[in-house]
């Protein structure tokens, strides 16, 4: 099986590389990057300018612009004549933290948006987004002078501020973020959306259904809290309980399903597996007076879903579907 997959991947890779190579004819154009200006800045900012003129994506893009303008350090940092004289941070547009640069995060972002607001659809709702409203500037996440890899923030970038999320990701149950299979960026647009938490969907459920499509239904019998908000029962980033549950079953289910019968029965330690205590008098999992419980499927292993496995919805007509039993 694996051999077959490897063959498929190799074939695909060769095909794609070849196709792209052919699609990249390249036409040399005059560089619009103003090296003479950069040579002035390099006298004091040697590392920054050298890094920029290497693999930086701005540098590469500007080299091949077809307009008559010249691009260089002043394109982002503003005119440098005054700064050359007084060296103060106030005389230049700096992207350092606010208290160093003396410029607000909004002012810094405005400089970047001069170009990027018309080039990147991800930035459409920047002004409405949570980061803009909380003084997170572009340079808080992006390293402007480095190579392409440093320009692209990773989940680790997010963890610098979102420490609670970082802690949750190391819990027993978690989305595969630290394994590198899911990134923060897959679910959140850090540049802003019209939804809460910068979600890349209208709400939580519409987001979760993108990957957990089998849960979207429509179902003959829905579970209303499930259909309305996955977060009623799950934590998005990590949980000490399996399946990212907020609370271990049966307690989670019994927080709502507390009506009479087995939903309102206390399943204590005596109901665990292998219990050799005398059997109770009554049946149906109900506790009996002056007797002990025996093993109950409502507690052991997967607890409630030992029977009610279709809790996200069922297409079984009748009572069994109604109680998400089949």
């Amino acid at each position, binding site marked *: 099986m694996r051999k077959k997959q490897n063959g498929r991947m190799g074939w695909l890779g060769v095909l794609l590389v070849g196709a792209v190579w052919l699609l990249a004819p390249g036409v040399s154009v005059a560089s619009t990057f103003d090296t003479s200006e950069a040579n002035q800045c390099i006298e004091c900012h040697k590392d920054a300018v050298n890094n920029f003129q290497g693999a930086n994506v701005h540098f590469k893009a500007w080299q091949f612009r077809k307009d008559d303008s010249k691009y260089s350090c002043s394109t982002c940092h503003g005119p440098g004549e005054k700064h050359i004289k007084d060296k103060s941070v106030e005389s230049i547009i700096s992207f350092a933290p606010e208290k160093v640069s003396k410029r607000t995060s909004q002012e810094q972002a405005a400089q970047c948006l001069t170009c990027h607001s018309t080039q990147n659809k991800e930035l459409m709702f920047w002004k409405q987004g949570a980061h803009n409203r909380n003084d997170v500037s572009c340079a808080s996440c992006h390293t402007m002078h480095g190579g392409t890899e440093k320009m692209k923030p990773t989940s680790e970038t997010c963890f610098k501020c979102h*420490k609670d999320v970082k802690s949750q990701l190391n819990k027993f149950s978690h989305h595969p973020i630290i394994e590198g299979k899911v990134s923060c960026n897959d679910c959140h647009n850090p540049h802003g959306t019209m939804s809460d938490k910068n979600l890349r969907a209208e709400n939580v459920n519409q987001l979760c259904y993108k990957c957990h499509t089998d849960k979207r239904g429509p179902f003959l019998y829905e579970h209303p809290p499930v259909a309305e908000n996955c977060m009623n029962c799950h934590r998005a980033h990590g949980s000490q309980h399996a399946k990212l549950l907020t609370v271990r079953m049966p307690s989670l289910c019994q927080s709502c399903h507390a009506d009479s019968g087995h939903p309102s029965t206390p399943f204590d330690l005596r109901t665990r597996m292998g219990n050799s205590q005398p059997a109770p008098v009554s049946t149906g999992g109900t506790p009996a*007076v002056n007797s002990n419980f025996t*093993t109950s499927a409502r507690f052991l292993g997967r607890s409630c879903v030992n029977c009610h496995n279709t809790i996200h919805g069922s297409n079984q*007509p009748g009572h069994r579907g109604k109680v998400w039993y089949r």
Partner: protein
Amino acid sequence: MKMKTFKMKQGSGLILTVGVALLSGQAFGEDAVGASEPFKLGNYELSAVPELQFQVVNGEKKSAKFNEYRDLTTGVAASANIHMNRDAYYTDLTIKDAGRKDQEYMLSGGKYETFNYKLRVTEMPHNLSFGAQTFFQGVGTNNLYYYDHPYYGPVTTPTNSTTAKNTTGPAGAVGWKNNFDYSLDIFDYAAEGSLSLFAPFYGDFGVEKRTTKGIKPFAVGTIELPMPVDFVNNTAFLEVGYRKENLKLSAKYDFSQFKSASDYLYYKDLANVGGSGGTTDLTQPDKQSIVTIAPSSYMNKATLSGVIGDLPFNSTLNMQTSYAVLTDKVELVAQMPTKTLGSEIISDPTFKGDVRYHKVDISVTSRPIEKLNTRLYGSYLNNTNNSTRITTLGITSSGTHETNAVFSYKKAGAGFDGNYRLPFDSKVAAGYHYTKSFRPDRTDALQTNQNDVFVKLSNNTFDWLDASLKGELLYRRSQFKSFGNVSETDPRTQVYKYVRPFDLASKNMWKLTAETNFIPIEGLGVDLSYGASKSNYIETQVGRVFDQIQEAYLASNYQFKGGYNVSGFVDMEDTSFKNNSRYVSAGSSGNPSEGDKVSGNAQAFNWGENDKTRSWGYGLTADAPITSKVSLGVSWLQDITKGSRAFSVDPIVQTAIKLQDIGEVDNAKHSLLNVKATYAATSRLTASIGFVFDQLKYEDDAYKNYELKPQSTSSANANGVVQYLTGAYRDSAYSAQVYYIAATYRL
């Protein structure tokens, strides 16, 4: 000795993620992907960073948890990053873990400011549980049958041909221990592109195919079944738009087709064997039961977005509206309540699902004066369920009727927030949000009103100190149905009047968050944060009455002279909640305020449970340059969780009802040690050797004394339960050692 593999990718940061990242293959950090001097090949500039690694993994036991999202087997792992560009054209090829079950291939490229594309193929395992056993034949298919009942022995030849599925299969008796793993394999193929050739107009498009195959556990009536998973989700989108600095418009269409290979899993239901139906399945071995699998469905969605800037008061108007239609069509299969009777009668054999989702968001962000930023916003959401209503009549037309209650809801919200810059580099932010929800189809709460407010203060006066304090309040009030139609004489339904589901119950919540980071001495950075919140579910007599959470985080990093670096962290999370319940049996009152009654087997008593979970983790990492070419890194991480559940009953019935507390609820201890030495042989060649110890201890009373065997008697046990478990999720604990050696060459 069981051998497994281990592989490495990029990664850095504090030990919390470094350690785990190492196990997922992130050992070589920027060594593997860092920028290298481009290599000229004709008109092309080329840089490449291939990486080859050999790894050995010793595992004490085979655990799905150890391999949950990765493929760890002893052997060779290969990865590479290749970049090439020619003038304004660029191409990047990324390969990770080629040939493994967590392999990734991504090809991206384009021409600066003109077009770009991305092609991606990824594979991810999701290992759920290994070493499961069942007596069912046909594992991996949607038809599970047995010829050798675990208690009754071999079944007779089928004589009834109502359903023929079980007439196929191996003849004669077969063993009931069929071994298999619960595992999913997820493949994702995606292509997307963006074209801005005719700026300010642009177009984006993309297609994606995601396949999920494998087996996951499904249980019905405590019969655990290996459910086949064979899903395909095909998606596509097309977006066109116009973007200038002060006017942005876009229209997007999304399509999703979800295909499930089967709507049903057929199986022989052991739960009815020897039941009240009189005869057993032994005489009618072809009678089957079914469980439903996820239905195939379609989703079509249209989204319109717009932003208008440069309005008065430095304002920007943001708008977005979307309309989605989710449909499916399922041929229903009526259930056979007992083996001696026929199938249930349903009013319509075809269920046509139709859920429509309409959302409108609008906001105005402004900066009326230099130091003030404001936002005024509103949203409307309408989830309409137009699915068919199916009535089940029972075995005969005069039986108990059950009709599905389709669930629709609406939400409307509005609010404002803003922040103002104060003297001394301080800032105050505040906001208010109101939401009104309508749920006409729910059987409990019809309407909910919720008010949220927050205030946040922050200060950056000192160069060496940042600090912030945030407080939040939430008030939610719900109107519950009167339940006047519930029979007062039936305590089993009467108690429902007093239940308040926590997702709707009226509640008051407060939350406090404090954060600071400071630099007490040069080279030493400290992050400290604390958060606490508590929800009180007022008016709740039966259900959750409170829940609360506390979180604290401390991290520090010190940079020594000479490149030595030490960092560490400690975090803690403490959660707890309390449920109030009332057990009611026939002849007693369901009203919790009427006290407790214990008399023979007829009981009604109040009881409660208090669940607590405390997690804490700590880690330490150190990096030391031994020589100019040799460096050493060590990291240690532990994450510990302890949970418990304490029960209480009314003092009046304490003598009769003695509940034992549960001391181990998802107790886990994860330990991770990583030691790595790196040798920079040349400016291009780097070699590494390392060792990782990874251990997870897991204890839970629900898995104590786990018996991987069928019920030992023919009838239900004393609790009315027949158990046929397969061992799902009992294999969480593991202990493993990983040894690896790797080389990276920058071309």
